[in-house]
Protein backbone atom coordinates (compact mmCIF):
# COMPACT_ATOMS: atom_id res chain seq x y z
CA UNK A 1 0.00 0.00 0.00
CA UNK A 2 2.86 2.33 0.95
CA UNK A 3 4.59 1.49 -2.35
CA UNK A 4 1.41 2.32 -4.27
CA UNK A 5 1.03 5.69 -2.50
CA UNK A 6 4.68 6.53 -3.15
CA UNK A 7 4.33 5.59 -6.83
CA UNK A 8 1.22 7.78 -7.23
CA UNK A 9 3.01 10.69 -5.49
CA UNK A 10 6.06 10.28 -7.75
CA UNK A 11 3.95 10.11 -10.91
CA UNK A 12 1.98 13.23 -9.86
CA UNK A 13 5.22 15.11 -9.13
CA UNK A 14 6.63 14.12 -12.53
CA UNK A 15 3.42 15.22 -14.27
CA UNK A 16 3.36 18.58 -12.48
CA UNK A 17 7.06 19.14 -13.16
CA UNK A 18 6.48 18.61 -16.90
CA UNK A 19 3.75 21.30 -16.87
CA UNK A 20 6.12 23.97 -15.60
CA UNK A 21 6.41 26.90 -18.02
CA UNK A 22 9.72 27.07 -19.75
CA UNK A 23 11.86 30.17 -19.49
CA UNK A 24 11.89 31.96 -22.82
CA UNK A 25 14.82 34.33 -22.45
CA UNK A 26 18.14 32.55 -22.58
CA UNK A 27 21.27 34.53 -21.93
CA UNK A 28 24.46 32.86 -23.06
CA UNK A 29 26.94 33.01 -20.22
CA UNK A 30 30.10 34.94 -21.02
CA UNK A 31 32.97 33.15 -19.37
CA UNK A 32 35.89 35.54 -19.81
CA UNK A 33 36.18 39.20 -18.88
CA UNK A 34 35.60 41.68 -21.73
CA UNK A 35 38.67 43.08 -23.48
CA UNK A 36 39.86 46.64 -22.88
CA UNK A 37 38.44 47.78 -26.24
CA UNK A 38 35.02 46.32 -25.49
CA UNK A 39 35.04 47.66 -21.90
CA UNK A 40 35.91 51.14 -23.15
CA UNK A 41 32.90 51.12 -25.50
CA UNK A 42 30.55 49.83 -22.81
CA UNK A 43 31.86 52.28 -20.17
CA UNK A 44 31.45 55.38 -22.33
CA UNK A 45 28.10 57.15 -22.36
CA UNK A 46 26.59 57.89 -25.80
CA UNK A 47 26.51 61.50 -26.86
CA UNK A 48 23.96 63.44 -28.85
CA UNK A 49 20.24 63.05 -29.39
CA UNK A 50 19.39 59.49 -30.50
CA UNK A 51 17.64 59.24 -33.85
CA UNK A 52 15.31 56.44 -35.01
CA UNK A 53 17.03 53.91 -37.27
CA UNK A 54 14.43 54.12 -40.04
CA UNK A 55 15.01 57.86 -40.41
CA UNK A 56 18.78 58.04 -40.13
CA UNK A 57 19.54 55.13 -42.47
CA UNK A 58 18.60 57.07 -45.61
CA UNK A 59 21.02 59.92 -44.94
CA UNK A 60 23.87 58.26 -43.05
CA UNK A 61 27.13 57.99 -45.02
CA UNK A 62 30.21 55.96 -44.11
CA UNK A 63 32.27 57.95 -41.61
CA UNK A 64 29.33 59.97 -40.21
CA UNK A 65 29.06 60.07 -36.44
CA UNK A 66 25.53 59.19 -35.37
CA UNK A 67 23.54 58.19 -32.29
CA UNK A 68 20.68 55.72 -32.54
CA UNK A 69 18.47 54.00 -30.04
CA UNK A 70 16.43 50.87 -30.28
CA UNK A 71 15.83 47.39 -28.96
CA UNK A 72 17.96 44.31 -29.50
CA UNK A 73 15.58 42.48 -31.87
CA UNK A 74 14.80 41.91 -35.52
CA UNK A 75 16.43 38.48 -35.86
CA UNK A 76 15.90 35.01 -34.37
CA UNK A 77 19.48 35.29 -33.03
CA UNK A 78 20.32 39.00 -32.75
CA UNK A 79 23.83 38.36 -31.41
CA UNK A 80 26.75 36.87 -33.32
CA UNK A 81 28.32 34.12 -31.21
CA UNK A 82 32.01 34.79 -30.76
CA UNK A 83 31.94 38.25 -32.34
CA UNK A 84 31.11 41.70 -30.97
CA UNK A 85 28.12 42.42 -33.12
CA UNK A 86 24.35 42.44 -32.77
CA UNK A 87 21.18 43.58 -34.49
CA UNK A 88 19.39 46.67 -33.20
CA UNK A 89 15.71 47.10 -34.11
CA UNK A 90 13.71 50.31 -34.36
CA UNK A 91 10.67 50.11 -32.02
CA UNK A 92 8.90 52.71 -34.17
CA UNK A 93 8.85 50.22 -37.06
CA UNK A 94 9.14 46.79 -35.43
CA UNK A 95 7.13 45.28 -32.61
CA UNK A 96 8.58 42.55 -30.45
CA UNK A 97 6.06 39.79 -29.82
CA UNK A 98 6.18 40.19 -26.02
CA UNK A 99 4.32 43.50 -26.39
CA UNK A 100 1.22 41.55 -27.35
CA UNK A 101 0.06 39.76 -24.18
CA UNK A 102 -1.83 37.16 -26.24
CA UNK A 103 1.28 36.22 -28.23
CA UNK A 104 2.97 33.11 -26.81
CA UNK A 105 6.03 33.33 -29.08
CA UNK A 106 9.10 31.83 -27.39
CA UNK A 107 11.49 34.10 -29.32
CA UNK A 108 9.76 37.51 -29.12
CA UNK A 109 12.91 39.29 -30.33
CA UNK A 110 12.55 37.83 -33.85
CA UNK A 111 9.66 40.26 -34.56
CA UNK A 112 8.12 37.52 -36.66
CA UNK A 113 4.85 39.42 -37.07
CA UNK A 114 6.52 42.29 -38.96
CA UNK A 115 6.86 42.25 -42.74
CA UNK A 116 10.26 41.64 -44.37
CA UNK A 117 10.12 45.21 -45.73
CA UNK A 118 9.65 46.67 -42.24
CA UNK A 119 12.45 44.49 -40.93
CA UNK A 120 14.72 45.69 -43.70
CA UNK A 121 14.17 49.37 -42.92
CA UNK A 122 13.92 48.96 -39.17
CA UNK A 123 17.19 47.22 -38.28
CA UNK A 124 20.86 48.11 -38.12
CA UNK A 125 24.02 46.15 -37.36
CA UNK A 126 25.99 47.37 -34.37
CA UNK A 127 29.58 46.16 -34.17
CA UNK A 128 32.60 46.89 -32.05
CA UNK A 129 35.85 46.96 -33.98
CA UNK A 130 39.54 47.04 -33.07
CA UNK A 131 42.11 49.61 -34.21
CA UNK A 132 42.41 47.79 -37.58
CA UNK A 133 38.67 47.98 -38.17
CA UNK A 134 38.08 44.26 -37.57
CA UNK A 135 35.13 43.13 -35.49
CA UNK A 136 36.31 41.94 -32.05
CA UNK A 137 36.42 38.17 -31.67
CA UNK A 138 34.42 38.09 -28.43
CA UNK A 139 30.71 37.80 -27.72
CA UNK A 140 28.86 40.76 -26.26
CA UNK A 141 25.70 38.91 -25.32
CA UNK A 142 25.08 39.22 -21.60
CA UNK A 143 27.75 41.92 -21.07
CA UNK A 144 26.78 45.39 -19.83
CA UNK A 145 23.08 44.58 -19.97
CA UNK A 146 23.20 43.64 -23.66
CA UNK A 147 20.53 40.96 -23.86
CA UNK A 148 17.70 40.19 -26.24
CA UNK A 149 14.99 42.91 -26.09
CA UNK A 150 17.19 45.32 -24.07
CA UNK A 151 16.72 49.01 -24.89
CA UNK A 152 20.03 50.30 -26.16
CA UNK A 153 21.49 53.66 -27.18
CA UNK A 154 24.56 53.60 -29.42
CA UNK A 155 26.88 56.33 -30.58
CA UNK A 156 29.34 55.50 -33.32
CA UNK A 157 30.60 55.91 -36.84
CA UNK A 158 28.81 54.57 -39.90
CA UNK A 159 31.05 51.74 -41.15
CA UNK A 160 32.71 51.49 -44.55
CA UNK A 161 30.44 49.42 -46.78
CA UNK A 162 27.31 50.59 -45.00
CA UNK A 163 24.45 51.65 -47.24
CA UNK A 164 20.85 52.82 -47.02
CA UNK A 165 19.79 49.17 -47.37
CA UNK A 166 22.23 47.86 -44.82
CA UNK A 167 23.15 50.24 -42.01
CA UNK A 168 26.28 49.18 -40.09
CA UNK A 169 27.54 51.23 -37.14
CA UNK A 170 30.97 50.86 -35.55
CA UNK A 171 30.00 51.58 -31.95
CA UNK A 172 32.13 53.98 -29.89
CA UNK A 173 29.79 53.94 -26.90
CA UNK A 174 26.88 51.74 -25.92
CA UNK A 175 24.49 52.13 -23.04
CA UNK A 176 21.69 49.71 -22.35
CA UNK A 177 18.51 50.36 -20.39
CA UNK A 178 18.10 54.00 -21.47
Amino acid at each position, binding site marked *: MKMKTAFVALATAALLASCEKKETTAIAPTTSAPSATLSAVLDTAPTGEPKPIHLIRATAKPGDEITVSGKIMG*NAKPFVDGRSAFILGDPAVLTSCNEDPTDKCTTPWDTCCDSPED*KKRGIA*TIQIVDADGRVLKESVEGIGGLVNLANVTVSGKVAEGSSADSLIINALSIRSGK
Partner: protein
Amino acid sequence: MLPLSYAVRNLFRSKSRLLQTIGGSAMVVLLVMASVAINNGMKRVLSASGSDRNVILVGAGSEESIQRSEVPERTAGIAEAAVAGITENLGVRAVSSEIHYMNYISLPNGNRSQALLRGVTLQALRVHPEVRLTAGNFPGAGELMVGRLAWRKLGLAESDLKPGGTLTLENQSLKISGIFAAPGTVLESEIWATLGDLRVLAKRETISCVVLRLDDPADFAEADLFAKQRLDLELTALRESDYYSRLSSFFKPLRAMTWITAGLIAAGALFGGVNTLYAAFASRVREMATLQSIGFGRGALLASLIQESTLACLTGALLASVIAVAFLDGRTVPFSIGAFTLEVGPGVAITGIVTGLLLGLLGALPPAIRCLKPPLPTALRMS
Protein backbone atom coordinates in the same frame (compact mmCIF):
# COMPACT_ATOMS: atom_id res chain seq x y z
CA MET B 1 17.56 -27.28 -8.94
CA LEU B 2 15.87 -29.23 -11.68
CA PRO B 3 18.21 -30.18 -14.54
CA LEU B 4 18.02 -28.15 -17.77
CA SER B 5 17.12 -31.35 -19.64
CA TYR B 6 13.80 -31.39 -17.75
CA ALA B 7 12.90 -27.98 -19.18
CA VAL B 8 14.09 -28.97 -22.68
CA ARG B 9 12.06 -32.21 -22.63
CA ASN B 10 8.97 -30.33 -21.46
CA LEU B 11 9.26 -27.96 -24.40
CA PHE B 12 8.39 -30.79 -26.77
CA ARG B 13 5.32 -32.00 -24.84
CA SER B 14 3.13 -29.88 -27.08
CA LYS B 15 4.75 -29.21 -30.45
CA SER B 16 1.98 -26.90 -31.62
CA ARG B 17 2.34 -24.75 -28.49
CA LEU B 18 6.10 -24.68 -28.95
CA LEU B 19 5.75 -23.55 -32.58
CA GLN B 20 3.23 -20.92 -31.51
CA THR B 21 5.61 -19.53 -28.86
CA ILE B 22 8.62 -19.55 -31.18
CA GLY B 23 6.64 -17.95 -34.03
CA GLY B 24 5.11 -15.28 -31.79
CA SER B 25 8.39 -14.32 -30.17
CA ALA B 26 10.19 -14.35 -33.54
CA MET B 27 7.64 -11.90 -34.91
CA VAL B 28 7.97 -9.55 -31.93
CA VAL B 29 11.77 -9.71 -31.93
CA LEU B 30 11.88 -9.11 -35.69
CA LEU B 31 9.63 -6.07 -35.32
CA VAL B 32 11.76 -4.63 -32.54
CA MET B 33 14.94 -5.25 -34.55
CA ALA B 34 13.36 -3.58 -37.60
CA SER B 35 12.33 -0.57 -35.47
CA VAL B 36 15.85 -0.17 -34.10
CA ALA B 37 17.38 -0.56 -37.59
CA ILE B 38 14.96 2.01 -39.09
CA ASN B 39 15.57 4.51 -36.27
CA ASN B 40 19.34 4.07 -36.43
CA GLY B 41 19.39 4.22 -40.23
CA MET B 42 17.37 7.43 -40.44
CA LYS B 43 19.37 9.12 -37.68
CA ARG B 44 22.66 7.98 -39.20
CA VAL B 45 21.88 9.25 -42.69
CA LEU B 46 20.67 12.63 -41.44
CA SER B 47 23.62 13.19 -39.11
CA ALA B 48 26.12 12.14 -41.80
CA SER B 49 24.50 14.43 -44.38
CA GLY B 50 25.51 17.66 -42.65
CA SER B 51 29.11 18.73 -42.17
CA ASP B 52 30.00 21.15 -39.37
CA ARG B 53 32.50 22.70 -41.80
CA ASN B 54 29.73 23.69 -44.21
CA VAL B 55 27.65 26.82 -43.76
CA ILE B 56 24.40 27.30 -45.66
CA LEU B 57 23.33 30.86 -46.37
CA VAL B 58 19.55 30.75 -46.77
CA GLY B 59 16.92 33.45 -47.06
CA ALA B 60 15.83 34.86 -43.67
CA GLY B 61 12.67 33.08 -42.56
CA SER B 62 13.39 29.93 -44.61
CA GLU B 63 15.58 28.24 -42.04
CA GLU B 64 13.27 25.20 -41.91
CA SER B 65 13.22 24.51 -45.65
CA ILE B 66 15.93 25.32 -48.16
CA GLN B 67 13.51 24.65 -51.01
CA ARG B 68 11.39 27.66 -49.97
CA SER B 69 14.45 29.87 -49.58
CA GLU B 70 15.22 32.68 -51.99
CA VAL B 71 18.70 34.16 -52.09
CA PRO B 72 19.93 36.75 -54.60
CA GLU B 73 22.27 35.27 -57.23
CA ARG B 74 25.03 37.77 -56.40
CA THR B 75 25.27 36.48 -52.83
CA ALA B 76 27.87 33.82 -53.68
CA GLY B 77 30.30 36.35 -55.10
CA ILE B 78 29.85 38.76 -52.19
CA ALA B 79 30.19 35.99 -49.58
CA GLU B 80 33.27 34.57 -51.33
CA ALA B 81 35.00 37.91 -51.00
CA ALA B 82 33.75 38.88 -47.55
CA VAL B 83 33.74 35.76 -45.38
CA ALA B 84 37.07 34.81 -43.81
CA GLY B 85 38.11 31.19 -43.34
CA ILE B 86 36.63 29.68 -46.53
CA THR B 87 38.56 26.62 -47.77
CA GLU B 88 40.71 27.47 -50.77
CA ASN B 89 42.29 25.04 -53.24
CA LEU B 90 44.48 26.18 -56.14
CA GLY B 91 43.23 29.72 -55.63
CA VAL B 92 39.55 28.76 -55.85
CA ARG B 93 37.36 29.26 -52.78
CA ALA B 94 34.79 26.59 -51.90
CA VAL B 95 31.53 28.46 -52.46
CA SER B 96 28.60 26.81 -54.20
CA SER B 97 25.36 28.40 -55.42
CA GLU B 98 22.55 25.84 -55.36
CA ILE B 99 18.88 25.46 -56.18
CA HIS B 100 17.03 22.80 -54.20
CA TYR B 101 13.84 21.84 -55.95
CA MET B 102 11.28 19.11 -55.38
CA ASN B 103 8.98 18.17 -58.23
CA TYR B 104 7.52 15.22 -60.07
CA ILE B 105 9.56 13.71 -62.83
CA SER B 106 8.35 11.30 -65.49
CA LEU B 107 10.11 7.96 -65.31
CA PRO B 108 11.14 5.53 -68.06
CA ASN B 109 8.30 3.17 -67.02
CA GLY B 110 5.72 5.90 -67.69
CA ASN B 111 5.03 6.66 -64.02
CA ARG B 112 5.62 9.96 -62.25
CA SER B 113 7.47 10.20 -58.99
CA GLN B 114 8.55 12.98 -56.66
CA ALA B 115 12.26 13.68 -56.81
CA LEU B 116 14.60 16.00 -54.96
CA LEU B 117 16.64 17.89 -57.51
CA ARG B 118 19.67 20.06 -56.88
CA GLY B 119 20.88 22.64 -59.38
CA VAL B 120 24.66 22.97 -59.08
CA THR B 121 27.85 24.05 -60.73
CA LEU B 122 31.19 22.23 -60.54
CA GLN B 123 31.79 24.24 -57.36
CA ALA B 124 29.39 21.84 -55.58
CA LEU B 125 32.14 19.21 -55.60
CA ARG B 126 34.32 21.58 -53.54
CA VAL B 127 31.74 21.96 -50.76
CA HIS B 128 30.48 18.35 -50.89
CA PRO B 129 33.77 16.42 -51.11
CA GLU B 130 31.98 13.18 -50.19
CA VAL B 131 30.39 13.18 -53.66
CA ARG B 132 32.19 10.86 -56.09
CA LEU B 133 31.28 10.12 -59.69
CA THR B 134 30.97 6.35 -60.03
CA ALA B 135 29.92 6.29 -63.68
CA GLY B 136 29.64 8.76 -66.56
CA ASN B 137 30.23 12.50 -66.31
CA PHE B 138 29.21 15.57 -64.35
CA PRO B 139 26.07 16.96 -66.02
CA GLY B 140 26.19 19.58 -68.72
CA ALA B 141 23.24 21.49 -70.19
CA GLY B 142 20.26 19.19 -70.77
CA GLU B 143 21.74 16.48 -68.55
CA LEU B 144 21.24 15.03 -65.09
CA MET B 145 23.48 13.17 -62.67
CA VAL B 146 21.64 10.71 -60.42
CA GLY B 147 22.58 9.55 -56.93
CA ARG B 148 23.21 5.83 -56.64
CA LEU B 149 20.10 5.40 -54.41
CA ALA B 150 17.81 7.67 -56.44
CA TRP B 151 16.21 4.59 -58.05
CA ARG B 152 14.91 3.52 -54.63
CA LYS B 153 13.45 6.97 -53.87
CA LEU B 154 11.77 7.02 -57.30
CA GLY B 155 10.43 3.48 -56.98
CA LEU B 156 12.35 2.14 -59.98
CA ALA B 157 14.64 -0.79 -60.61
CA GLU B 158 18.33 0.08 -60.24
CA SER B 159 18.87 -0.75 -63.92
CA ASP B 160 16.36 1.94 -64.96
CA LEU B 161 18.74 4.75 -64.04
CA LYS B 162 21.87 4.26 -66.09
CA PRO B 163 23.98 6.82 -67.97
CA GLY B 164 22.42 7.40 -71.37
CA GLY B 165 18.84 6.98 -70.09
CA THR B 166 16.38 9.87 -69.95
CA LEU B 167 14.09 11.41 -67.36
CA THR B 168 11.47 14.05 -68.07
CA LEU B 169 11.08 17.14 -65.95
CA GLU B 170 8.55 19.85 -66.81
CA ASN B 171 8.08 18.26 -70.27
CA GLN B 172 11.81 18.53 -70.89
CA SER B 173 13.73 15.34 -71.61
CA LEU B 174 17.01 15.26 -69.76
CA LYS B 175 19.75 12.72 -70.40
CA ILE B 176 21.40 10.91 -67.51
CA SER B 177 25.08 11.80 -67.76
CA GLY B 178 26.40 9.98 -64.72
CA ILE B 179 25.87 8.34 -61.35
CA PHE B 180 27.35 9.62 -58.12
CA ALA B 181 27.88 8.23 -54.65
CA ALA B 182 27.97 10.12 -51.36
CA PRO B 183 28.14 7.26 -48.87
CA GLY B 184 25.73 7.41 -45.95
CA THR B 185 24.14 10.75 -46.87
CA VAL B 186 20.77 11.81 -48.29
CA LEU B 187 22.60 13.29 -51.28
CA GLU B 188 22.71 9.79 -52.78
CA SER B 189 18.95 9.91 -53.33
CA GLU B 190 19.08 13.25 -55.15
CA ILE B 191 19.25 14.14 -58.81
CA TRP B 192 21.66 16.87 -59.79
CA ALA B 193 21.28 19.16 -62.79
CA THR B 194 23.13 22.26 -63.87
CA LEU B 195 22.21 25.43 -62.00
CA GLY B 196 21.22 27.09 -65.28
CA ASP B 197 18.88 24.27 -66.34
CA LEU B 198 17.17 24.08 -62.99
CA ARG B 199 16.77 27.87 -62.80
CA VAL B 200 14.83 27.71 -66.08
CA LEU B 201 12.86 24.53 -65.30
CA ALA B 202 11.94 25.70 -61.78
CA LYS B 203 11.11 29.18 -63.16
CA ARG B 204 13.26 30.88 -60.53
CA GLU B 205 15.13 34.16 -60.63
CA THR B 206 16.93 33.49 -57.38
CA ILE B 207 18.91 30.59 -55.98
CA SER B 208 17.94 28.55 -52.90
CA CYS B 209 21.16 28.86 -50.96
CA VAL B 210 24.88 29.41 -51.00
CA VAL B 211 27.01 26.73 -49.38
CA LEU B 212 30.43 27.70 -47.99
CA ARG B 213 33.05 25.19 -46.84
CA LEU B 214 35.23 26.45 -44.00
CA ASP B 215 38.72 25.37 -42.97
CA ASP B 216 37.68 25.45 -39.34
CA PRO B 217 34.12 24.94 -38.03
CA ALA B 218 34.80 27.71 -35.47
CA ASP B 219 34.83 30.20 -38.36
CA PHE B 220 31.06 29.85 -38.55
CA ALA B 221 31.02 33.16 -36.63
CA GLU B 222 32.49 34.86 -39.72
CA ALA B 223 29.62 33.62 -41.89
CA ASP B 224 27.06 34.57 -39.24
CA LEU B 225 28.63 38.03 -38.98
CA PHE B 226 28.45 38.39 -42.77
CA ALA B 227 24.75 37.47 -42.76
CA LYS B 228 24.09 40.07 -40.05
CA GLN B 229 26.17 42.76 -41.73
CA ARG B 230 24.59 42.33 -45.16
CA LEU B 231 21.04 43.04 -44.04
CA ASP B 232 20.16 43.99 -47.62
CA LEU B 233 20.64 40.36 -48.72
CA GLU B 234 18.23 39.12 -46.00
CA LEU B 235 20.25 36.03 -45.12
CA THR B 236 20.53 33.56 -42.28
CA ALA B 237 23.69 31.50 -41.78
CA LEU B 238 23.12 27.89 -40.73
CA ARG B 239 25.61 25.18 -39.96
CA GLU B 240 24.81 22.34 -42.38
CA SER B 241 25.04 19.88 -39.47
CA ASP B 242 22.46 21.93 -37.51
CA TYR B 243 20.12 21.99 -40.51
CA TYR B 244 20.14 18.21 -40.77
CA SER B 245 19.84 17.82 -36.98
CA ARG B 246 16.69 19.90 -37.18
CA LEU B 247 15.43 17.67 -39.98
CA SER B 248 16.18 14.70 -37.78
CA SER B 249 14.00 16.22 -35.03
CA PHE B 250 11.29 16.79 -37.64
CA PHE B 251 11.23 13.05 -38.34
CA LYS B 252 11.06 12.15 -34.62
CA PRO B 253 7.27 11.51 -34.72
CA LEU B 254 7.78 9.14 -37.65
CA ARG B 255 10.45 7.25 -35.72
CA ALA B 256 8.21 7.23 -32.64
CA MET B 257 5.46 5.65 -34.73
CA THR B 258 7.71 2.68 -35.55
CA TRP B 259 8.33 2.20 -31.81
CA ILE B 260 4.64 2.54 -30.95
CA THR B 261 3.68 0.01 -33.64
CA ALA B 262 6.34 -2.44 -32.47
CA GLY B 263 5.34 -1.84 -28.83
CA LEU B 264 1.65 -2.47 -29.49
CA ILE B 265 2.31 -5.67 -31.42
CA ALA B 266 4.80 -6.80 -28.76
CA ALA B 267 2.24 -6.13 -26.01
CA GLY B 268 -0.40 -8.09 -27.94
CA ALA B 269 2.00 -10.99 -28.49
CA LEU B 270 3.07 -10.90 -24.83
CA PHE B 271 -0.51 -11.11 -23.59
CA GLY B 272 -1.23 -13.88 -26.12
CA GLY B 273 1.84 -15.75 -24.89
CA VAL B 274 0.87 -15.25 -21.25
CA ASN B 275 -2.59 -16.59 -22.02
CA THR B 276 -1.15 -19.68 -23.73
CA LEU B 277 1.20 -20.32 -20.84
CA TYR B 278 -1.61 -19.87 -18.27
CA ALA B 279 -3.45 -22.69 -20.02
CA ALA B 280 -0.29 -24.80 -20.37
CA PHE B 281 0.92 -24.36 -16.78
CA ALA B 282 -2.60 -24.78 -15.32
CA SER B 283 -2.60 -28.37 -16.51
CA ARG B 284 0.69 -29.00 -14.70
CA VAL B 285 -0.28 -27.91 -11.18
CA ARG B 286 -0.35 -31.53 -9.94
CA GLU B 287 2.97 -32.30 -11.62
CA MET B 288 4.57 -29.33 -9.86
CA ALA B 289 3.02 -30.36 -6.57
CA THR B 290 4.43 -33.88 -6.99
CA LEU B 291 7.89 -32.46 -7.61
CA GLN B 292 7.51 -30.31 -4.48
CA SER B 293 6.49 -33.33 -2.45
CA ILE B 294 9.68 -35.20 -3.44
CA GLY B 295 11.82 -32.27 -2.29
CA PHE B 296 12.15 -29.66 -5.03
CA GLY B 297 11.57 -26.11 -3.77
CA ARG B 298 9.15 -23.64 -5.34
CA GLY B 299 12.10 -21.46 -6.45
CA ALA B 300 13.66 -24.36 -8.38
CA LEU B 301 10.33 -25.12 -10.07
CA LEU B 302 9.81 -21.45 -10.94
CA ALA B 303 13.31 -21.32 -12.45
CA SER B 304 12.58 -24.44 -14.52
CA LEU B 305 9.31 -23.01 -15.88
CA ILE B 306 11.08 -19.75 -16.77
CA GLN B 307 13.86 -21.76 -18.43
CA GLU B 308 11.27 -23.46 -20.61
CA SER B 309 9.68 -20.21 -21.71
CA THR B 310 13.01 -18.40 -22.18
CA LEU B 311 14.42 -21.23 -24.30
CA ALA B 312 11.40 -21.07 -26.61
CA CYS B 313 11.56 -17.27 -26.87
CA LEU B 314 15.32 -17.25 -27.47
CA THR B 315 14.79 -19.78 -30.27
CA GLY B 316 12.30 -17.28 -31.68
CA ALA B 317 14.90 -14.50 -31.29
CA LEU B 318 17.45 -16.64 -33.14
CA LEU B 319 14.97 -17.24 -35.96
CA ALA B 320 14.19 -13.49 -36.08
CA SER B 321 17.92 -12.66 -36.22
CA VAL B 322 18.41 -15.03 -39.18
CA ILE B 323 15.44 -13.42 -40.99
CA ALA B 324 16.75 -9.92 -40.16
CA VAL B 325 20.22 -10.66 -41.52
CA ALA B 326 18.78 -12.34 -44.63
CA PHE B 327 16.03 -9.89 -45.49
CA LEU B 328 16.60 -6.58 -43.64
CA ASP B 329 20.35 -6.03 -43.67
CA GLY B 330 21.39 -3.78 -46.54
CA ARG B 331 17.81 -3.04 -47.62
CA THR B 332 17.21 0.55 -48.73
CA VAL B 333 14.23 2.38 -47.26
CA PRO B 334 12.95 5.55 -48.97
CA PHE B 335 11.60 8.52 -47.03
CA SER B 336 10.51 12.01 -48.03
CA ILE B 337 13.97 13.56 -48.44
CA GLY B 338 15.99 10.56 -49.49
CA ALA B 339 16.67 6.96 -48.66
CA PHE B 340 18.66 5.15 -46.02
CA THR B 341 20.10 1.68 -45.69
CA LEU B 342 19.17 -0.68 -42.87
CA GLU B 343 22.09 -2.17 -40.97
CA VAL B 344 21.70 -5.18 -38.70
CA GLY B 345 24.74 -4.50 -36.54
CA PRO B 346 25.70 -5.57 -33.00
CA GLY B 347 23.35 -2.99 -31.41
CA VAL B 348 20.34 -4.31 -33.32
CA ALA B 349 21.31 -7.94 -32.59
CA ILE B 350 21.70 -7.29 -28.84
CA THR B 351 18.33 -5.51 -28.75
CA GLY B 352 16.78 -8.61 -30.38
CA ILE B 353 18.33 -10.98 -27.83
CA VAL B 354 17.31 -8.79 -24.87
CA THR B 355 13.75 -8.61 -26.27
CA GLY B 356 13.66 -12.42 -26.55
CA LEU B 357 14.92 -12.79 -22.97
CA LEU B 358 12.37 -10.31 -21.62
CA LEU B 359 9.55 -12.01 -23.52
CA GLY B 360 10.53 -15.37 -22.02
CA LEU B 361 10.85 -13.97 -18.52
CA LEU B 362 7.85 -11.65 -18.40
CA GLY B 363 5.63 -14.06 -20.31
CA ALA B 364 6.33 -16.97 -17.96
CA LEU B 365 6.35 -15.26 -14.57
CA PRO B 366 2.62 -14.64 -13.94
CA PRO B 367 1.42 -18.11 -15.13
CA ALA B 368 4.29 -19.84 -13.32
CA ILE B 369 3.54 -18.03 -10.05
CA ARG B 370 -0.13 -18.93 -10.38
CA CYS B 371 0.77 -22.56 -11.08
CA LEU B 372 2.96 -22.78 -7.96
CA LYS B 373 0.68 -20.76 -5.65
CA PRO B 374 -1.86 -23.37 -4.42
CA PRO B 375 -0.94 -25.07 -1.10
CA LEU B 376 0.63 -28.51 -1.60
CA PRO B 377 -2.38 -30.62 -0.35
CA THR B 378 -4.79 -28.70 -2.60
CA ALA B 379 -2.41 -28.83 -5.56
CA LEU B 380 -1.96 -32.60 -5.25
CA ARG B 381 -5.71 -33.11 -5.46
CA MET B 382 -6.14 -30.82 -8.51
CA SER B 383 -6.87 -32.46 -11.82
